[in-house]
């Protein structure tokens, strides 16, 4: 698939952007820093997932300076050409003054796994002109976003890896984001109940329905994640070999906080649900004391292993960066495999950290996808590295074809 049109109104530093007839192949977005290259990729990611890869509050996405009465409206519109026909996606964000972020960059870092719908920002989504809920948006436009922060997939905390696989699965299986949502809400309810039990304002018998829900939704999440991770590790291995020129063996390990008997079955995890439920019973006293649910997929980790060693403790910084790249290329390939359509690749400033050999490898792999957006300051893509494709110059919220 590919994006043929993109229109942004009052989005970050874009006042009014209209891009029509965006071609397939490489779409190179060239410009100095802080001109809006990354914002453009963020807009495409938002149209795909309704989430921002980096904003902690939705209010950050809105260009606030305009109207007099303190409210502001942001519109993102994209037209996607899929194998099965064109799709239009529209995302509206309407902000009240209280959602305006403070000018000082003192933004609290919340749990990045769940960008909460912020109070004061109303969201409206339309697909082909018809109103849709955020969950029904997923899957219309699928994207794989590459960015410098991907190194965190290898060296960072588990939350980033959980988020990565959650976004990946949400794009290919409509049941998955629903399971995540139900799981998160059931856990919030259970945690409140745990604290009420500790205060002797509720009885332990009230836990049963929440434990059931957690076990059922959690087992589905676990089973989906493990199935995807196995395949992802194989694909990452194939992507890694030409990048590194080495013969390392890549595999993946899913470190679960509930006992897992046997491999993922792709059956929604009926057996896992039983084990999960039993485990929730075992840790009940501890959970009540802590007022928190201490086991489940929200506490799990998934790691890439190199020759059996966790990737985070393997090799040099450069080798870790190569592993992160292999992971992302595997995600793109996974999307292609499962949906039988090319995802749109979004490469944000990925070349500055790579040597010429790795750049060449990435360009060769990316070139096999229908459409690839690349941002660059221009310096590292000079000469023979410049891909065949269309070029746009990004300057202060304007984008001009070259």
């Amino acid at each position, binding site marked *: 698939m590919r994006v043929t049109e993109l229109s942004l109104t009052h989005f970050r530093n874009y006042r009014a952007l209209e891009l029509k007839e965006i071609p397939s192949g490489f779409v190179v977005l060239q410009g100095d820093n802080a001109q809006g290259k990354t914002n453009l990729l963020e807009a495409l990611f938002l149209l795909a997932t309704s989430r921002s890869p980096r904003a902690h509050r939705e209010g950050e996405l809105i260009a606030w300076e305009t109207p007099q009465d303190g409210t502001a409206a942001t519109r993102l519109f994209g037209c996607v050409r899929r194998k099965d026909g064109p799709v239009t996606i529209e995302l509206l964000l309407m902000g009240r003054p209280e959602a305006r972020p403070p000018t000082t960059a003192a933004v609290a870092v919340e749990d990045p796994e769940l960008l909460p719908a912020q109070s004061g920002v109303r969201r409206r989504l339309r697909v082909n002109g018809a109103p849709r809920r955020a969950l*029904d948006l997923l899957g219309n436009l699928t994207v794989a976003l590459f960015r410098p922060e991907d190194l965190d997939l290898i060296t960072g905390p588990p939350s980033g890896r959980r988020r990565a696989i959650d976004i990946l699965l949400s794009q290919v299986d409509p049941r998955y984001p629903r399971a995540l949502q139900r799981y998160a809400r*059931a856990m919030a*309810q259970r945690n409140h*109940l745990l604290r009420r039990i500790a205060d002797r304002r*509720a009885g332990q018998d*009230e836990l*049963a329905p929440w434990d059931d*829900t957690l076990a059922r939704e959690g087992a589905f999440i676990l089973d989906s994640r493990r199935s995807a991770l196995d395949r992802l590790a194989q694909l990452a291995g194939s992507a890694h070999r030409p990048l590194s020129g080495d013969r390392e063996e890549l595999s993946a390990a899913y470190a679960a906080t509930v006992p897992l008997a046997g491999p993922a079955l792709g059956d929604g995890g009926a057996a896992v649900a039983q084990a999960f439920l039993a485990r929730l019973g075992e840790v009940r006293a501890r959970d009540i004391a802590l007022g928190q649910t201490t086991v489940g997929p929200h506490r799990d980790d998934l790691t890439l292993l190199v020759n059996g060693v966790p990737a985070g403790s393997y090799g040099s910084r450069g080798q870790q960066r190569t592993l992160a790249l292999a992971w992302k290329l595997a995600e793109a390939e996974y999307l292609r495999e499962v949906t039988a359509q090319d995802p749109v690749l979004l490469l944000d400033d990925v070349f500055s950290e790579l040597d010429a050999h790795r750049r060449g490898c990435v360009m060769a792999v990316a070139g096999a996808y229908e459409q690839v957006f690349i941002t660059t300051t221009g310096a590292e893509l000079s000469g023979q590295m410049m891909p065949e494709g269309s070029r746009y110059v990004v300057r202060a919220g304007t984008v001009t074809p070259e």
Partner: protein
Amino acid sequence: MSRLIDQLNKLPGVGPKSAQRLAYHLLRMPEDHARALADAIVEMKERSILCERCQNITEASPCTICQEAARDAHTICVVEEPLDLVALERGRGYRGQYHVLHGVISPMDGIGPEQLKVRELLNRLRDGTVTEVIMATNPTLEGEATAMYLQRLIGPLGIRVTRLARGLPAGGDLEYADDITLARAMEGRQEVTS
């Protein structure tokens, strides 16, 4: 005036602007109309009580539905709110008894079984007349959890516990149904009979 606006603003679905508009409308109203509205509100508050059996809002207890002799005494349909009961009655597909919980279990809102009409429901099941309890709570996470919780209490009494079916709305269009509704409808498919 501003006191009235504040009061109206507290109503569900009424924002500050609507509250102002309503208040000015009331201001221009003939006095007898305004008095009739005020009386209606006060009278409703004074006269409305909960039915001793089904816990529905009524003026006389037991309520007219509970007193209707033609109704099946062996089934109780459990709903969250009085309005759900009204909706089911409008459908005319059910001729049994009701029980209104007045909410759903939601620990984050401080609502547990104690805050709902659960004990009253269990009391109605004691004498063995009721053979089936139909869970008609909403298909939300909390509605499901409430149904599950009640099922655990009622199941061991040897009473059949059923749940409303989920699927496509009548007169609906497949194209406009959301994914999850379609998936559920597929799960709950039935034999076509001639």
